[in-house]
């Protein structure tokens, strides 16, 4: 039902949908540091879908989502080194066919500018690519330098591949000649710079010719930086998943309370309610909405700062980590604080989306007595509601452990996010439970807890003890939930500088071994070793959308949104 593109017409035939969303800030399908927010991904996918989309619950071996992918198929060579991808027969909105050359264009640009690419890590994509070959108009292959686990490679490395309109963008200025500039690394940098600088001017997104050539089911109709964004159905779209609605309006989303007010008065088609307002689901439903928690492919945890010279030695003690973990009542928190919109995190690999809110099968359940015993067994004098102290220092069995002197108290500061009711309540609960075992916890709420709990660098003060920044989940995985960015020694997001040889080995295995059990083994080990404290993993959001909107469910745990599938009525 591709309708007219004028707002009035669209509204008249009811095919416009308003969606609450933070205003995107980036359009170029090469993401930049700081521009990796979910809204940018959704926005980008609507205009420039990537080669592969994924569907966690799907049948596909690599969880590929064939409907939304630009790729028809991908094949891994016998030797496991070459990935050959065939594209569907699609066209750019200006009529030019989408070809392998367009993917190559993307690849050349990131290869020549990898340091500026948000997804780059040393040794990762594109460093691990031996060669990129265009085989024919719609087929290309990527040969890797080593043999990787195909699940990891397709899920976590090839996920960024995106066709970009080489025939329109391969130039260095607005008036510049389009040529094969991307094939020379030097000129590729110029092209990249040109495109980036165009993308750095959001006010012109809807007017700049560059962005009028799209491959996705949507075109950009209007764009207000920090404000409303209007997408219109791409009438030239040739794919199977053409938009049903004629228009999608992204309304700026700011804060739970005002969102909720809006929903209560029916002012928006698709918005969110705060999880702790889930008990009012009914009221919202009476207002003509479907309420549906949006589970994420994520884990939630409290980071422990192993590198802190003061408290690091304490965190190094596994028994202490275990004790603390046993003091976190994930089930009750999920149920009460999150109104069931959270489920316990058991280990680094997320639970199935929609998993029950129990910690059954987790390495550690809630067990305060066990925690106390554990501490007492390791040389601590436990003083409930006071400060437990080390009475038996030393490194031997039953002693406090290395670097812990006699009389050492158990007291930490927890840096936590401000502005989240559920977050504050969770902290209150944990603080209360910790105090039962004599572990003092001082809560410091800051607007951006990540900023204050960075990876310790040499010469810099590194005084944070524990840090929580997961009121919407701490970490969202790509489809293949391996831990190389989180828990490997010196990994970029290893905030607390956790380092464990076995863990490193197991993480490597998830990347290189084709053993399907690798991920499981890695998960089991870390779930038990506690590089961080596992916390209830909340849903990403609780969505509420007009009853008459169909095609929204199930929502993608990797937080993509496909409004082209939605219909009214």
């Amino acid at each position, binding site marked *: 039902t591709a309708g007219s593109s004028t707002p009035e017409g669209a509204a008249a035939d009811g095919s416009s949908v308003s969606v609450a969303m933070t205003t995107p800030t980036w359009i170029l399908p090469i993401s930049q540091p700081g521009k990796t927010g979910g809204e940018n991904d959704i926005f980008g996918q609507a205009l420039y879908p990537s080669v592969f989309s994924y569907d966690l619950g799907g049948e596909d071996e690599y969880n590929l989502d064939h409907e939304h992918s630009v790729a028809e198929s991908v094949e891994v060579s016998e030797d496991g080194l070459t990935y050959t991808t065939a594209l569907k027969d699609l066209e750019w909105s200006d009529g030019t066919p989408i070809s392998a050359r367009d993917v190559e264009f993307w690849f050349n640009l990131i290869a020549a500018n990898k340091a500026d690419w948000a997804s780059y890590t040393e040794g990762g994509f594109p460093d691990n690519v031996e060669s990129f070959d265009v085989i024919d108009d719609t087929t290309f292959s990527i040969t890797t330098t080593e043999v990787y686990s195909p699940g990891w490679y397709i899920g976590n490395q090839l996920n960024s591949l995106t066709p970009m309109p080489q025939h329109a963008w391969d130039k260095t200025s607005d008036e510049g000649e389009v040529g094969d500039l991307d094939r020379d690394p030097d000129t590729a940098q110029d092209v990249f710079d040109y495109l980036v600088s165009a993308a750095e001017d959001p006010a012109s997104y809807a007017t700049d010719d560059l962005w009028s050539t799209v491959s996705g089911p949507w075109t950009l109709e209007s764009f207000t930086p920090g404000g409303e964004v209007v997408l219109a159905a791409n009438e030239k779209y040739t794919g199977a998943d053409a938009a049903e609605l004629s228009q999608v309006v992204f309304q700026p989303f700011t804060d739970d309370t005002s969102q*909720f007010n809006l929903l209560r008065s029916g002012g928006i088609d698709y918005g969110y309610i705060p999880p*702790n307002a889930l008990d009012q689901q009914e009221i919202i439903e009476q207002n003509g909405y479907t309420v549906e928690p949006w589970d994420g492919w994520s884990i939630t945890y409290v980071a422990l700062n192993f590198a802190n010279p003061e408290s690091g030695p304490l965190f190094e003690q596994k028994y202490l980590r275990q004790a603390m973990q046993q003091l976190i009542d994930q089930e009750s928190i999920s149920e*009460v604080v999150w109104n069931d919109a959270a489920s316990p995190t058991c280990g680094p690999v997320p639970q199935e989306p929609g998993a029950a809110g129990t910690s059954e099968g987790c390495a550690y359940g809630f067990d305060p007595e066990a925690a106390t015993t554990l501490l007492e067994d390791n040389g601590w004098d436990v003083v409930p509601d006071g400060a437990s102290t080390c009475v038996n220092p030393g490194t031997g069995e039953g002693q406090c452990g290395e670097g812990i002197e006699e009389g050492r108290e158990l007291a930490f500061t927890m840096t936590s996010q401000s502005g989240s009711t559920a977050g504050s309540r969770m*902290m209150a609960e944990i603080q209360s439970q910790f105090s039962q075992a004599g572990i003092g916890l001082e809560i410091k709420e800051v607007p951006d807890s990540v900023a204050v709990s960075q990876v310790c660098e040499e010469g810099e003060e590194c005084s944070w003890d524990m840090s929580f920044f997961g009121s919407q989940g701490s970490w969202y995985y790509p489809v293949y939930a391996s831990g190389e960015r989180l828990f490997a020694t010196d990994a970029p997001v290893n905030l607390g500088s956790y380092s464990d040889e076995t863990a490193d080995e197991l993480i490597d295995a998830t990347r290189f071994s084709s053993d399907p059990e690798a991920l499981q083994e890695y998960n089991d080990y870390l779930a038990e070793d506690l590089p961080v404290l596992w916390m209830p993993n909340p849903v990403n959001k609780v969505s509420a959308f007009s009853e008459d909107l169909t095609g929204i469910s199930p929502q993608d745990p990797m937080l993509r949104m496909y409004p082209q599938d939605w219909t009214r009525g």
Partner: protein
Amino acid sequence: MFFENRLAAVGLLLIVGLVAFSFLGPLLHPTDQVHTDLANAYAAPGVEGYALGTDGVGYDQLGRLMFGGQTSLIVGLAAGLLATAFGTLWGATAGFVGGWVDAVMMRVVDALLSIPALFLFMLIATIITPTVPMLVLTIAAFAWLNPARMIRGDSIALRSRDFIVAMRGMGGGSLRAVRTHVVRNAIGTVIVNATFQIADAILYVAYLSFLGLGVPPPAANWGGMLSSGLSEIYSSHWWLVYPPGILIILLVLSFNFVGDGLRDAFEVRLRKR
């Protein structure tokens, strides 16, 4: 006049009542404000001996209100008094020394005053970690400006009053002028201003909590309770919203009543001639 004083009396009574509620209340109604009790979260008033129900983590709401009142009152009083003391000193110095010292001191006041309070608070709050003493300092860091301005105006006006001229004619200097005369005559302004400052400080704590920069758990204050209760406004959990809201209003209102009453009292004393 009579009625006004009655309002002031009502205000004073309310303040006494609220102080008693917050500080003596826990003796009559002891509750555990340290340990959460998720099993009993959101209990309705009257259920299981929770007179005013429980909140989202199972704290007894009535006890929580008492506990939160302590913070609200302490922060309000401390910030209000600190600001008044500092502002008075600053203003009196500027007003009496005069000249370029005054100019510089007052430009600093102008500069800070031109940043709207909440903007300034938010700036400060992104830098410091909100604990109770920090909150007091933050609020005082802004609140001293008004008394400073006011007292400066007062001392400039006093400076040219005949009785100061007379005192100089007896050979007295500026120090004496400030010590004996300005202090005596400005004290009314200072006290009245302090009551308003306290009221404002209590409101500011509430605003900071609303903006996500309040005191972290397990501390509580009425402003924080109100703003976190705000998201419950549509739930049937009315006891999480309205009691803290009403208490804040009462507290701020009563300090304003008292301030108004005091102002009248001080004015009348001078007017009487």
